[in-house]
């Protein structure tokens, strides 16, 4: 990543890029989840004015999950396979506050209900491999939103799901983020999906931001990479003989990042 600048308010920010663009790494860097030999250097890395760049690890642990949560792509890999759903959710709660066992359980069940899981009591006792992909992702959302964070970072939350399930999960995320007034960073490779779901979009390429715009303005995008991405997706309703092939201009790597600060 090079020279990335952006701000996030009570809004939905979409970060779009292909593999290797640095989009996932941006999400992780915001939470300082980069392991050595990776290093984070920044002029500023702040949350609500608090400096996160130099905060001690203990403070970071309080922030992670407590004020900023992250959902990842495949619940098969992000849920602990040897703990039941209920155990994991309760563990997430206990990390950020003192709750009695019963209280924690009740909260977890209530949260499962909020993500439209029909039989929360039964699902509470299941293991991750016993639930479907869509359900697993909803459990992940429930688990991450339990401690009431203010910001949610979603890293390709629907890419591993079937198309019909995707919409359901997105609806739930939409509802919860709106109801709780949270900020959302939505990381994805799917430009059109992000355009539909988010308020602002940032397009990344080779570790840099090449363009930023409001979601509604995407069709007027100017940077050739963005335009190329938009045109290379085969559209069901508008067939074309040949799909446009993206010509990667080496100049894109030389141009510094565009700032996405509001």
């Amino acid at each position, binding site marked *: 990543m090079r020279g990335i600048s952006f701000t996030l308010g009570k809004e939905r920010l979409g970060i779009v890029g*292909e*593999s290797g663009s640095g989009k996932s790494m941006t999400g992780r860097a915001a939470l300082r989840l980069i392991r050595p030999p990776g290093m984070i250097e920044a002029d500023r890395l702040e949350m609500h004015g608090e400096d996160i760049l130099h905060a001690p690890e203990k403070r970071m642990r309080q922030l992670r999950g407590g004020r900023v949560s992250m959902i990842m792509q495949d619940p098969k890999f992000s849920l602990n396979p040897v703990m039941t759903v209920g155990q994991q959710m309760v563990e997430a709660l206990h990390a950020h506050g003192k709750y009695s066992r019963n209280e924690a359980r009740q909260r977890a069940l209530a949260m499962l209900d909020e993500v439209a899981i029909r039989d929360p009591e039964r699902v509470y006792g299941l293991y991750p491999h016993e639930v479907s*992909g869509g359900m697993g992702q909803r459990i992940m959302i429930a688990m991450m939103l339990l401690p009431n964070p203010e910001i949610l970072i979603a890293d390709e939350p629907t890419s591993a799901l*079937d*198309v*019909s399930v*995707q*919409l359901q999960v997105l609806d739930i995320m939409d509802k919860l983020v709106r109801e709780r007034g949270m900020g959302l960073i939505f990381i994805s*490779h*799917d*430009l*059109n*999906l992000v355009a*539909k779901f988010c308020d602002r979009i940032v397009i990344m390429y080779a570790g840099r931001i090449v363009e930023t715009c409001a979601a509604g303005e995407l069709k007027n995008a100017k940077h050739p990479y963005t335009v*190329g*991405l938009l045109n*290379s*997706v*085969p*559209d*069901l*309703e508008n*067939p*074309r003989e*040949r*799909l*446009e*092939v*993206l010509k990667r201009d080496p100049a894109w790597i030389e141009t510094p990042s565009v700032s996405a600060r509001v």
Partner: protein
Amino acid sequence: MTAIAIEDLNVWFGSPGHRSYAVKDVSFKVEDGESFGLVGESGSGKSTILRAMAGLVPTWSGRMIVAGETLGKTRSKSFYRKVQMVFQDPYASLHPRHTVDQVLSEAMRLHGVENVDQRIVNLLNDVGLGTGFRFRYPHQMSGGQRQRVAIARALAPEPSILLLDEPTSALDVSVQAEILNLLVDLRAEHRLTYLMVSHDLGVVGHLCGRIAVMQEGRFVETLGVNEMRKLQAKADYTKHLLESSINSVR
């Protein structure tokens, strides 16, 4: 001429008494030169049909006549000269310790193709890779390049039918566009018949003329691509799939 004729195909897994059917009572025909798409969500059985045709799944019943040959439990060498398959994951479909040259020359030697060296150069050009790639190992190539090698391997015996199992789902959108263009070009150039599996209706719409929608192992509906574009589906499930795709696209 019918390239592929499938009648009452059932494919199952598991021991007798505990059978789980992946494909149930599927019948369809694909004509020479046609491009036929199998669409469905994960678990719908679409990839299983391809694998059963390729001889990778032994537990099936029904009738399959492919490239003029009635298929039995095993496949003959001549079958593999006429029918080839391209797999989904470019990171898993090439042997990690074999160079591109080894992959292609082995395929050709197994089929008794002569003039191997020249053919390798031709194949690499056909799939848009220069000869500079000839001696590379898979880890020295990107996903799109590996998939091109996989396509080259499939073209080595000069088949007439290509089975494509989600050939672009593991690729970035911009790379997918290149591979889709390549597949369109190759089909025209070599007059191939395609049977393609995908969960992406946009991709299927681009490459195929007729589409079958599958759900839980069964065919729900077969429709032409024009009907699909106009969202004229008869079955509810198809309509639901089409709407989900449109919504998630633009």
